[in-house]
């Protein structure tokens, strides 16, 4: 899906836990997520802390979306 949407000229951020698979399938902007059963959340946190975590991940993704990349990039921070 990532590749097809990009082929249509729209940049994509792939948020995923297993970034090596994302690299293998050819995503260009990759954000490491939390864990396979809960990529964008963490049930171990309090609801308030989890909301902060989720906001941070979305903001990071939006920043990655507007960042020029030279080939496949994992946005670690």
């Amino acid at each position, binding site marked *: 899906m990532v590749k097809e949407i990009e082929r249509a000229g729209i940049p994509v951020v792939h948020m995923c*836990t*297993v*970034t*090596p*698979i994302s690299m*293998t399938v050819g995503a260009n902007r990759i954000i*490491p997520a*939390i*864990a*396979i*059963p809960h990529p964008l959340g963490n049930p171990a946190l309090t609801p308030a802390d989890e909301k902060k975590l989720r906001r941070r991940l979305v903001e990071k993704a939006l920043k990655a979306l507007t960042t020029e990349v030279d080939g496949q990039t994992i946005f670690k921070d």
Partner: protein
Amino acid sequence: MKLELGKILIHDICFAEKSEIRDGVLYVSKEELEKIVMQEEGIQSVSFDIAKPGESVRITPVKDVIEPRVKVEGPGGIFPGMVAGVETVGSGKTYALKGMAVVTAGPIVGFQEGVIDMTGPGAEYTPFSKTLNLVMVCTPVPGLEAHDYESAVRLSGFRVAAALGELARELQPDETVVYECSDLKESFEKYPGLPRVAYVQMLQSQGLLHDTYVYGVDAKKILPTLLYPTEVMDGAIVSGNCVSACDKNPTYIHENNSVVEDLFAQHGKTLNFVGQIVTNENVYLADKERSSNQTAKLCRMLGLDGVIVSQEGFGNPDTDLIMNCKKIEAEGIKTVIITDEYAGRDGKSQSLADADVAADAVVTGGNANELVILPKLDKVIGTLAYINKIAGANAETLREDGSLAVELQVITGATNETGFGRLSAR
């Protein structure tokens, strides 16, 4: 470390007043076994049934398959850390009841468990159509959480298997096989010219009922560690999972690991079987990286020439597999990986979720997506109530004539990645 494995051949199973083994027949008292199962507070009731090879019987939902064993000499007991103490096992003398298995069944979550057919095309795919199966179907007390139900059924299965094994304690085995492996220094001196080979076994440890236990420790919490390969023959590794049953290792397969068996057969002849490394398949990327780093480190420390890696499961564990392969190869150690494939029903899709050029020697256990039609069988042990939800089935699986249209995925052990099944490719 030397283990004598005595095989008690079981030719038949019958229900009787008293549990005993006489002339190769296992007599089972339902009352005696029921008492053992009812030790678990979470279980409300249990029913026992017998399924024999060739009978028109379908068992589902299957949770685990266990071979009864008993420790006759040497430290510890069978299934250490589960239903025995935590002494290091794998030495002395152990008896196994061959030709039979305890099968635990019951809808723990319904969609994760497997199917065993005792006849027809389904029987060709599961190794457990060839064993005399004592099936126990456990019903939980109302309101019991799935994970507590899983634990109760798991432990009762081991207790029942250990109790049946105990019946063989005073018997004379029909045959005995001796497995012996030396410590590192001795083995390097003894076989100076032979390639040093280890077995890296990846254990399913994704949580949410996809777990495996090593001496009672949840494998997701271990750092990769080293075992004498005889330890698994005493039940040092046990199953707590069965999701997509085709490529998960029931406890029976841990007790009878084909890779261990075959490496022992070559030990001292074409290679020096140095040991077994167990590692996990966790759901955090850092865990995957840490475990594969540590696995490669152990391989280097052991001064290996070659490694066989077996996977358990598919999907994201493909990444653990490829990380292990790449990192071990990067140490200059040759690897062969054993996996299975999810290549679509036509077999034309990419087989694994991850890949690397270092993975240039691969053995497959078959394509789990392959569609098979399993005809209606006369008797069902367990229930068909979940058959359309089981992984590898769909809403149209149960057809009007009672047959099942399913992917191989649903069949317990069909594409096993330790080579225990019957499928492969050249």
